[in-house]
């Protein structure tokens, strides 16, 4: 793939119109107020038929699984160009929304990406029907709870949240933090360790439970204040003796029968998917920063010349354009791999995410620099984008974790 197809460009234009008509008028409340992003995201889902598409896909998959057939690989369900289009259709909304509200993409991605994807990959058919469908169509808001106050990058090793067996039930305890959609989530995937006598904490089984908002013992904290990403509510979850039946354990009995250090592998697939999404986010942020910087460089006059005529500003614009081209090519590669029924290995996905996050931060900070004093003011959009971009180096695996994954792969060759 070397360029967007006409259909992709049509989708972009339709999304751009949606952003201009539905998001730009409430941008201030989303980014500097307390308006949660869900209503406008739902409107996007219904306006573009994304809910209907998710529902149809879900029903097909469930019908297939009910025949007792093994899960189908994506490459078996569509031809190459359809697979390319499907991937492009999932990335284009990310790119276009990120030009204004990267936080909205985070709220959307965690709900329909992480949460629904976990239920759909680990759940039983009953669990998929009970929780997966509504989260996939955005009727319900999902949260995926792994991070804890004392475990971030070492998510599984340092995890303290527990599930204790009591007869047919599990009793869940623990606290989670930095949980996207936490304050508003209807459906929460809670990741914890099974209490097992005689097994070292690091080696205990990891279990995923599905919780509904309002369950006794589950408390959803209010939105935390943070540096950026204000259009994405982030909060804490506190669980005190939350009682669940086997029906809420993702995978049911099967999840328990796996021995040893099971339960960790699925989360790693999830990390991989997140890394591709972050690259599309970076592209959106960079495209917007570049567009704004070029406009400002042409308009802003100092010493009787537009600042774009000064070579130091030209250098910044040229570097931004190089980043934009690289990111776009990485997005094209993601689409091309999907068309061929392939995906990146962890090290390549990590390398892509590392580059994308750094490029977005560098470009956004340079955009602030092009804008000078204005860029430091909240009135100008580059200020928000610079704050938002920083999270890309932290979530979905910090830069340092990406570097470790790349180095491990290189050194094992």
């Amino acid at each position, binding site marked *: 793939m070397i360029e967007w197809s006409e*259909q992709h460009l*049509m*989708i972009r234009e*339709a999304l751009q119109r949606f952003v201009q008509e539905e998001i730009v008028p409430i941008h201030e409340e989303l980014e500097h107020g307390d308006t949660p992003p869900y209503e406008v995201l739902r409107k996007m889902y219904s*306006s*573009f*038929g994304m809910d*209907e598409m998710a529902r149809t896909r879900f029903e097909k998959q469930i019908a297939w699984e009910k025949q007792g057939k093994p899960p189908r690989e994506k490459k078996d369900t569509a031809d190459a160009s359809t697979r390319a289009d499907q991937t492009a*259709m999932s990335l284009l909304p990310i790119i276009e929304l990120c030009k204004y509200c990267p936080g909205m993409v985070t709220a959307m991605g965690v709900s329909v990406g992480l949460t629904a994807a976990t239920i759909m990959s680990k759940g039983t058919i009953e669990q998929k029907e009970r929780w997966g469908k509504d989260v996939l169509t955005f009727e319900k808001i999902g949260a995926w709870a792994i991070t804890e106050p004392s475990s971030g990058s070492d998510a599984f090793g340092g995890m303290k949240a527990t599930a204790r067996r009591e007869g047919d039930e599990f009793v869940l305890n623990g606290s989670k933090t930095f949980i996207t959609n936490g304050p508003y989530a209807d459906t929460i995937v809670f990741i914890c360790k099974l209490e097992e006598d005689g097994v070292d904490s690091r080696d205990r089984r990891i279990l995923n439970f599905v919780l509904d908002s309002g369950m006794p013992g589950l408390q959803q904290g209010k939105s935390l204040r943070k540096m950026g990403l204000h259009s994405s509510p982030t909060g804490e979850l506190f669980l005190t003796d939350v009682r669940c039946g086997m029906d809420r354990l993702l995978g049911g009995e099967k999840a328990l029968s796996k021995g040893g250090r099971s339960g960790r592998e699925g989360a790693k697939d999830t990390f991989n998917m997140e890394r591709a999404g972050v690259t599309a986010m970076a592209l959106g942020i960079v495209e917007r920063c570049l567009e704004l910087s070029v406009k400002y460089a042409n308009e802003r006059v100092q010493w009787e010349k537009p600042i774009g005529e000064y070579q130091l500003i030209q250098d910044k614009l040229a570097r931004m354009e190089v980043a934009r081209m690289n990111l776009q090519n990485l997005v094209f590669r993601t689409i091309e791999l999907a068309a061929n029924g392939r995906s990146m290995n962890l090290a390549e996905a990590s390398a892509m995410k590392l580059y994308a996050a750094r490029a977005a931060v560098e470009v956004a900070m340079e955009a602030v620099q092009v804008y000078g004093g204005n860029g430091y003011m909240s009135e100008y959009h580059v200020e928000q984008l610079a704050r938002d971009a920083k999270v890309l180096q932290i979530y979905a695996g910090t830069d340092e974790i990406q570097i470790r994954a790349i180095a491990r792969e290189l050194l094992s060759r």
Partner: protein
Amino acid sequence: MKIMVCLKQVPHQDARLDINADGTWIQEDNIKFEINSYDTYALEEALRTKDAGEADVFVVSIGPDRVGQALRTALGMGADRAIHVNDDEANGSDSLGLAKILAAVAKQENPDLIFMGLMSDDDNSAAVAPMLAQLLDIPHTTAAVKVERSNGTVTCDREIEGGAHEVVELTAPCLIAVQTGLNQVRYASLKGIMAAKKKPFDVKSVADLGLSGQVGTGAAKVKIDRIAPPLKGDTAEILSGSTAEVVAGLVSKIKELGLL
């Protein structure tokens, strides 16, 4: 029911417009185009008629290859098929030439309703709709801000001077040229855009429509002699300097002219 929607592709509202070398039109290379805003409301009105019952909605446009994208966007929004009159012989047609081409398409298709925009964002002539209705000898109305259909008749509110509405009733087949804002134009769904690739898309030449020699530059009675931005007059004075100096200059100017 068969509904024809006439679309024009015009330069994007954010496009930077430069005048071409011979001063008769803008430079069209490397600028973005979009569907004329008035026509998007016409399309939406047609699609609503379709949603309310059975209708075959087809979109028609005249112009070079790039116009195909406007038609495919309309297909993505829900139109059933497209007719693209793509022929160099149509270039340079005046409003009457364009109306003749659209009339020839309408005569082949016999639509019950024709929806189109009141005018185009680019040259604002508002002439094609009444001319087309005249050539087809069917009733028409313009500046419609409300359209209601019942058995064989269409009742429209027209916008007239002073914000008043005039209510007209038309018998189908008829033509309705709409004002902007009469509805909320839908977004093309992602599935719709992908499905648009497979919908019927006819390309016609001027000869296919039996109009050879009757349209295009040669037949045009109205020709654009020259387009130009408004001339800069010498009545404007640009104040320069720091903000304080500019404000002081402005205040003294106001006093000097006795405006306060």
